[in-house]
């Protein structure tokens, strides 16, 4: 399974040898032929910039008279939010701030990459606009956490610098089938995650923070709609190729974008952060199973016909996978070791239960 090949006190690196598999010409052609369809069905899911929210809408306005008062109120609300919540929110924020990695990842995909940085194919237009929308997420969370005074910004900033430097290899192998399946899963995962941090913020009495997490979650939902639509189209055009791709991604397991995170102090940072996210119910193993189940239903995988022998095997594997994951999770829950505390540099070395 995936381990971390690590010298102590250095950022982790991907263990597996990285491969690239240039897409066959006939498959590339599919993405060329979909330009018209993508314009009509995918680009319409982007929000025009003039209609978009901006971070300033949810933060104290520095140009207003009431700025300092608003900041005071923000800090007052944050005082009552427990450290463990901030650990998870910070982890999510760091993930968002590693956006350059995700734009890069989309541009590794054959057939849909932005060849010049200003390419006018619908795929390239989508990727840039998607990146631009996502960019606001990190900015908003960064400013909120900065103003809150509850977290060690320097440690967080260091973690972000390490993470962008590390990149990530989701094993999508230049293949847009794999790539869009991966992003479909991830967008839903972030939608679930931010939805949970919104709910928890409300429970802790910070309605403004709840709004912030909620507005981010709404974006993720819209992005999930776009990516799942692309994969739905691929299932329609090339059911065999797409089911093989889905089985492949699920066998490889959907790795989390920030799994290489490092803060200069903790060699188990990602694992520790994940534990807290699991314990708080922000993002859990159950969510992983739920997302898979949702996608299998959304793409009507059980109803696929006209598959090759390999395709049918892949279909069986995917359709049978959710219950197996749930059983595994049950077992892990049943034998969960007692929770133990761990320090996080993001909160000045204070400890939180894992």
């Amino acid at each position: 399974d995936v381990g971390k090949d690590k010298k102590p006190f250095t950022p982790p690196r991907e263990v597996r040898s990285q491969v690239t598999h240039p897409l066959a010409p006939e498959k590339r052609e599919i993405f060329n032929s979909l330009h018209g369809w993508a314009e009509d069905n995918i680009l319409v899911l982007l929000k025009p910039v003039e209609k978009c929210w901006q971070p300033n809408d949810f933060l104290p306005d520095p140009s207003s008279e009431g700025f300092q008062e608003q900041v005071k109120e923000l800090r007052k609300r944050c005082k009552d939010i427990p450290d463990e919540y901030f650990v998870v929110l910070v982890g999510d924020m760091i993930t968002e701030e590693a956006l350059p990695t995700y734009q890069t990842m989309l541009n590794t995909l054959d057939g849909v990459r932005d060849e010049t940085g200003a390419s006018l194919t619908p795929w390239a237009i989508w990727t840039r606009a998607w990146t631009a929308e996502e960019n606001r997420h990190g900015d908003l969370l960064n400013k909120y956490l900065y103003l809150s005074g509850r977290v060690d910004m320097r440690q967080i900033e260091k973690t972000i610098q390490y993470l962008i430097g590390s990149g990530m290899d989701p094993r999508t192998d230049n293949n847009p089938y794999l790539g869009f399946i991966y992003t479909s899963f991830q967008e839903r995962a972030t939608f679930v995650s931010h939805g949970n941090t919104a709910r928890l913020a409300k429970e802790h009495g910070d309605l403004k923070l709840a709004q912030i997490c909620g507005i981010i979650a709404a974006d993720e939902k819209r992005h999930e709609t776009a990516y799942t639509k692309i994969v739905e189209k691929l299932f329609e055009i090339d059911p065999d190729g797409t089911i093989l791709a889905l089985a492949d991604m699920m066998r490889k397991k959907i790795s989390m974008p920030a799994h290489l995170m490092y803060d200069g102090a903790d060699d188990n940072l990602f694992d520790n952060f994940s534990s807290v996210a699991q314990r708080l119910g922000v993002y859990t193993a159950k969510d992983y199973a739920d997302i898979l189940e949702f996608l299998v239903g959304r793409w009507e995988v059980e109803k696929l016909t006209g598959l090759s022998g390999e395709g049918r095997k892949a279909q069986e594997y995917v359709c049978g996978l959710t219950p197996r994951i749930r059983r595994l999770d049950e077992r892990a829950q049943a034998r969960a070791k007692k929770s133990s505390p761990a320090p996080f540099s993001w909160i000045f070395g204070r400890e939180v239960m894992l």
Partner: protein
Amino acid sequence: MASFAASPVSFSAVSCTVKPNQVSNLRRASLSFSGKSSPSRRIPALRFRVACSAKPETVCKVVDIVRKQLALPDDRDVSGESTFATLGADSLDTVEIVMGLEEEFGISVEEESAQSITTVQDAADLIEKLLEKK
């Protein structure tokens, strides 16, 4: 000779019913297999190993569980030597095999021990160790 020596399991196609006291019968059978009947025939080293570590019936049960989990065809040879990886098990299969073994033998396998299991023999040996502790 080699396929027999690999495991008592290959003797019976579907289910395994070898009991420890039948080992001597098997030895006699191996002699007639080769067409010779010399009682001083050398015992294959491999069988010695099976007899010295986990009981054959334990290996048997492990093989059964592995066969079921991986939906292996009857003619696919599985022995103590077989590694889960070469049998086509991915990480999920391996965990489920361990879960199956826990249920079958009423034991609990620690994460660390589970991760060190690579062959059928490893699993059988670990099971016997845990059964002894009980």
